[in-house]
């Protein structure tokens, strides 16, 4: 399958997902060039021996944004593309795009100071959810039940030094069942979907919720493909919630984890990602 194609794996650490990707590439006879995001340097001229395509698996949004731009500068396509990484990796930009493409998404208000954030929370109404604009795994998310909570949380966030904490992404709290949905889209295909359950309001698998395969209804497939297409397409995990008014997309993740999804569905997700990535190199 290689046809002389060498796949670059740009990574931070080797988790079960990256290990599965390395194994899937080896099984298909595709040589992999390992590119550690803490080691690689990027000059203005293309270095020799570049791979034909780079699969971005860096867990750092910042490193991902600059690295895929550099690879594009060298003429090396990446999965995902620079614009997708920038857009889907930033919850604010992603929400704007979903709204522009009329993909149902929770009501969202952005604020750029703690004072404005208080007004944003009041506009969204209680309970509201406060999320960091970048990063995930459910960290630094807060459910705000009343004005007292809001004041305390905003005070804490204001005390954090990073400028990203003075950008406030406020979303309506969706009264959903004790589960949400994750759907993996590869190119123009929905590859697998699962429910993530948790007694806690955050259902991220990284936080220890349980998972099970979800039936891929026409509505789920259609909405997931629309969400993936809205941000530019590629390898994307679409997270959805079952609101009283139907499915809503709350996140589109450009560097998805898929260990739990593989276990829940039995789908060879690493293999599908490798095959898609090689296909991008051939375009």
């Amino acid at each position: 399958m290689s046809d002389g194609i060498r796949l670059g794996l740009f990574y931070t650490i080797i988790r079960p997902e990256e290990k599965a990707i390395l194994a899937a590439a080896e099984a298909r006879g595709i040589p992999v060039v390992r590119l550690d995001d803490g080691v690689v340097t990027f000059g203005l001229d293309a270095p020799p021996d570049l791979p034909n395509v780079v699969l971005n698996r860096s867990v750092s949004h910042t490193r991902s944004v600059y690295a895929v731009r550099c690879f594009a500068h060298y003429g090396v396509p990446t999965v995902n593309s620079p614009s997708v990484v920038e857009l889907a990796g930033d919850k604010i930009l992603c929400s704007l795009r979903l709204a522009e493409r009329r993909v149902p998404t929770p009501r969202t208000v952005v604020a750029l100071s703690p004072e404005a954030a208080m007004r944003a929370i009041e506009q969204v109404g209680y309970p509201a959810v406060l999320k960091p604009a970048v990063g995930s795994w459910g960290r630094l998310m807060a459910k705000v039940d009343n004005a007292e909570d809001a004041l305390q949380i905003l005070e804490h966030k204001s005390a954090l030094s990073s400028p990203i904490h003075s950008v406030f992404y406020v979303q309506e709290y969706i009264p959903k069942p004790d589960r949400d949905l994750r759907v993996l889209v590869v190119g123009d295909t929905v590859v697998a979907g699962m429910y993530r359950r948790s007694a806690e309001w955050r259902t991220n698998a990284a936080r220890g919720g349980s998972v099970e395969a979800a039936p891929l209804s026409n509505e789920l497939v259609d909405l997931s493909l629309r969400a993936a297409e809205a941000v530019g397409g590629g390898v994307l995990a679409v997270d959805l919630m079952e609101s009283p008014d139907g499915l809503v997309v709350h996140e589109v993740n450009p560097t998805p984890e898929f260990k739990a999804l593989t276990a829940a569905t039995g789908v060879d997700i690493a293999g599908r990602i490798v095959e898609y990535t090689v296909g991008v190199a051939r375009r």
Partner: protein
Amino acid sequence: MTNCPECDASVENRGMVLGEVFPCPDCGTELEVLANAPFAVQPAPKEAEDWGE
């Protein structure tokens, strides 16, 4: 076989690949495989604010 840099416990290479992250069986510290021959590990990179999916 090598030792955990945090607790000095013996750590065995059970088919791990370069760069793989795993918890020390004794102290739970996340370790990263630095080399396979000879087997060497270091504390895994600390999670940063912009880490995620």
